[in-house]
């Protein structure tokens, strides 16, 4: 299969060898699980349990609400200790409403929905409902509810389901291990998803630095002629939905559009496996594979972690920390976000927990820009980071927006190559946050304006109606008075 070139990108030191040969091990149940109501993009789920309730494994704890949302289920049986605010696994360190579950150690399953006898005879709608009920979100890290993404076939003409096994972030090996160990499950999940989407073709894209995963996936896919497993060049950020699509189809996704408009839908390998579990066994999403790595961790591992496990428990399971880490990162080192502390739970989008040493973080003082143009050369989106950062530094956010800062997806390649260590991607994250905020403020202002105008018109109408009523009443009185006194009196006219 022909692979098309993708512009820009970088070749960081991958350091995947730290954990790539470590088989996935299950995490023993911790003493307490913390399940945030928002582990996905969209509206937070609504809790359906309260403090003191006994729940079984797989039971619904919080129901999806609104158009874009995802449910959360109990990863094991036990008692609901509390529903309270707990620090979110988010760089802000803000708290969010979280369900706390004390496992009872029995790990008893709740009654699960009957598995679909033949998913390929089921309707797309039925599969989507099952996937939504299982609370599955994109496990690559974006955590967009998968059921909605499986509905893209209704609005677009789709040709290809692209299974993303690129895993271009350094350190992370969870997708690699899932493909090596559970290739058949991933392929089955992918086939079910392709059926729901109505795509004929399935392409599995894997970076060429994972030959074992490619071999395992090729073998699992060999029985199905419509599935091709292809190696893509090792080039960060190949795992980005848009760039992987470009490498496979040669088509560039237009700004502010979805890959679906090119007839391609991209799902992560972990998501495909979760769909397999949901459809074949009726099991909701209760755990995910997380890579724990980095120079400060005693022993890096790939772990099948029940959702809601504290990161501190996870690190303790890896033998604790060898040395105080300079930074704890949630996700990969390129796009991952720092964690406020170890006392935050693992959620659906946690692909890795990295404890990085000062050497690995490599913090340097920012130097003046030497206008070398490296950031322009490597920007995979074809943007001009140096110019955008200059505008943002001078608080000209509209100028940066005109240069396309909203099309930046924060891959961090520019910050990585900058010889002056300018925190370019930090500028863009700030600008995107501010521009989104301005957009929200604008919408609110419009709403307030409409409300105020409606009220003014209503008050005017009321006043007018009152006046008219008063005038009518006065006229009636006068007429009545005139009629009773003297019908010929001029005053009555």
């Amino acid at each position, binding site marked *: 299969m022909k692979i098309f070139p993708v512009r820009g990108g970088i070749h960081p030191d991958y350091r995947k060898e730290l954990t790539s040969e470590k088989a996935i091990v299950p995490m023993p149940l911790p003493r307490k699980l913390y399940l945030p109501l928002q582990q996905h993009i969209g509206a937070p789920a609504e809790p359906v349990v309260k403090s003191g309730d006994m729940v079984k494994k797989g039971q619904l704890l919080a129901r999806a609400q609104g158009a874009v949302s995802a449910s959360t289920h109990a990863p094991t049986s036990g008692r609901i200790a509390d529903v309270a605010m707990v620090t979110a696994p*988010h760089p802000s360190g803000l708290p969010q409403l979280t369900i706390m579950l004390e496992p009872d150690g029995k790990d008893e399953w709740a009654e699960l929905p009957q598995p679909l006898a033949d998913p390929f005879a089921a309707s797309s709608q039925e599969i989507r409902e099952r996937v939504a009920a299982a609370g599955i979100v994109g496990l690559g890290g974006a955590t967009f509810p998968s059921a909605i993404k499986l509905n893209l076939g209704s609005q677009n003409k789709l040709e290809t389901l692209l299974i993303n096994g690129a895993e271009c972030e350094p350190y992370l090996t969870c997708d690699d291990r899932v493909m090596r160990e559970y290739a058949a499950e991933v392929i089955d999940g992918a086939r079910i998803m392709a059926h729901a989407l109505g795509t004929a073709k399935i392409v599995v894209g894997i970076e060429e630095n994972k030959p074992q995963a490619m071999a395992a996936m090729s073998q699992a896919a060999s029985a199905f002629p419509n599935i091709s497993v292809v190696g893509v060049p090792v080039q960060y950020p190949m795992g980005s939905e848009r760039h992987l699509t470009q490498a496979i189809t040669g088509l560039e996704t237009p700004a502010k559009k979805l890959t679906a408009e090119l007839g391609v839908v991209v799902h992560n390998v972990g998501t495909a496996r979760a769909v397999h579990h949901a459809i074949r066994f009726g099991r909701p999403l209760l755990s995910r594979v997380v890579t724990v790595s980095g120079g400060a961790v005693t022993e890096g591992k790939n772990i099948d972690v029940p959702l809601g496990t504290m990161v501190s428990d996870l690190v303790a399971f890896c033998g604790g920390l060898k040395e105080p880490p300079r930074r704890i990162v949630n996700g990969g080192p390129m796009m991952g976000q720092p964690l406020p502390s170890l006392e935050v739970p693992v959620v659906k989008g946690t692909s890795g927990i990295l404890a990085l040493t000062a050497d690995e973080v490599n913090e340097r003082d920012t130097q003046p820009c030497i206008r070398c143009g490296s950031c322009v050369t490597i920007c995979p989106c074809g943007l001009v980071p140096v110019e955008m950062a200059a505008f943002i530094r001078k608080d000209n956010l509209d100028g940066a927006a005109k240069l396309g800062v909203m099309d930046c997806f924060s891959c961090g390649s520019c910050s990585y190559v900058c010889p002056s260590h300018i925190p370019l991607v930090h500028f863009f994250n*700030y600008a995107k*946050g501010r521009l*989104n905020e301005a957009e929200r403020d604008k919408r609110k202002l419009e709403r*307030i304006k409409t*409300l105020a105008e409606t*009220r003014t018109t209503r008050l005017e109408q009321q006043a007018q109606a009152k006046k008219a009523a008063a005038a009518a009443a006065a006229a009636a009185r006068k007429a009545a008075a005139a009629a009773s006194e003297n019908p010929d009196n001029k005053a009555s006219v």
Partner: protein
Amino acid sequence: MLLAVGSLVAMGATLGTVLGIASRYLAVEGNPLEAELLALLPGAQCGQCGFVGCGQAAAALARGEAPVTLCPPGGKAVAEKLSKKLGVKADLSEHEDKGPQYAFVQEDLCIGCLRCANECSTDAFIGAPKQVHTVIRENCHGCAKCFKVCPTEAIKMCAVPVTLGEWHWEKPGSHELH
């Protein structure tokens, strides 16, 4: 010389007539800047700026008699937009921005007098006589008009909390970069 004087007089008369007609038929009613400034203001007529409503505030801004930081509920965002429109450099770092606020009714203090609901310019209150009132948060823009009229001080102005979805990174340190 007469020719020169005559031609100048003729030119003056013609141009004067043209300008006179133009000023009559092509006149712009009101100050167009006012309308543009009005569009930037919240339009809730809350009167916190000291003017009767947003229209009067826009007129004062257009005349240059009011600072761009005049609108408390609009906050920094509106101040920035106004300063950009008017081309004035406003020192926004000095401007005390309390951030977005909303009104909250403490139910144990509310006597159901409806004064707040009558005062509210965006119909954000739900209530009936002698019933506890409450505020629809999305409709409240924190102008605090209700806060001032409440006879029992049941209304509290609260800061709108930052949610995980709305939080964003701060601007990187202001080192010399370029």
